[in-house]
């Protein structure tokens, strides 16, 4: 999105009169990108739908506080990421297990999920990703599937480019090893 267009959209979102129309436009613009970003974290469609709706509601509630220190899409990605991770943590707390266990359960449920249509290698790749620490999972998914640049990732995840490169290479190494061994 062009900077001028983004500024107009933000101004509309923060105004009393144009807010609803602007918010509908915002959802239309970002719904798919944010959905797939969330889906890669929580894996199931139903959970992704819950988190996506919560993300947009949170965006709506907090748009007045958006000060343009980062790009709008980085800010929204950050909210979506936080919402997805919080969702997993809450689920883990509710089930009295660890977040890693919740992710393992989600992976094990994939094969029976009607909204999963992967072949064996795709399933293995998802299993390999699930073995990574959460931050490496995020970096790998956003770099490998979404082709984000390191600069964009740095803005979204508020981490240095050097640290992100290191995380990504470690993730690639682990996933390659997993795929080779299995």
């Amino acid at each position: 999105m062009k900077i001028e267009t983004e500024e107009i959209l933000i101004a509309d979102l923060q105004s009393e009169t144009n807010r609803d129309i602007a918010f509908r436009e915002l959802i239309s613009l970002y719904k798919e990108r944010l959905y797939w970003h969330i889906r890669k974290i929580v894996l199931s469609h139903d959970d992704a739908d819950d988190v996506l709706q919560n993300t947009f509601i949170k965006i709506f509630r907090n748009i007045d506080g958006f000060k343009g220190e980062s790009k709008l899409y980085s800010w929204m990605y950050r909210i979506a990421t936080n919402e997805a991770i919080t969702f997993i943590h809450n689920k883990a707390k509710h089930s009295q297990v660890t977040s890693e266990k919740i992710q393992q359960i989600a992976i094990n449920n994939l094969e029976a999920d009607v909204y999963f249509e992967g072949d064996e290698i795709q399933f293995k790749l998802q299993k390999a990703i699930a073995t990574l620490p959460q931050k490496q999972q995020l970096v790998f998914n956003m770099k490998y599937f979404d082709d984000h640049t390191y600069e964009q990732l740095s803005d979204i995840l508020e981490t240095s480019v050097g640290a992100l490169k290191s995380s990504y290479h470690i993730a690639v190494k682990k996933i390659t090893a997993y795929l080779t061994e299995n």
Partner: protein
Amino acid sequence: MNKKNIHSKNSGFTTPQNYFDTVEERILQEITLKKNGPKVLPFRIPNGYFETLEDRVLAKIPSIKKEPKIISFIHTKTFKYVASIAAIIILYVTLFKDTSIGMFDFNAIDQSQISYYVEQGYIDISDTELESLISEKALNNNLLSLDISKDEIFDYLSNLLDDNTLNLEDH
């Protein structure tokens, strides 16, 4: 190509330590992954899912708008924060009031240390448990004695609402 010759030209550029020792391995890993790991996501969505999303999200917005902009004090983190300190004070008074053994001087503990202790989650008590520990009278007294101005509370809540930063552990 002789790498040393390139470096000896004093171009001013340097590489991270051991960069050339691992570059082959990293490129080969990337190639292996691209060969074996498909870039297409294996997930499907229900038919028409995205077409109805705007309406479903916006349907939830009016109820949010109708909410008065009064933030319930009893549900805020501020309450938990203040109430936790109050609970510690009450527990201390209850446990050590009648004993002559001066294990430590509670007043010597800095308030910031207590705040840090609470914020780090070392005290894991539910709201219900918290309520059962605190009498309303004692709580009011403690809240009043904290002398928090309205501006400070407002700033604190505003910062909470703006706080969307990631809090991820580095791995």
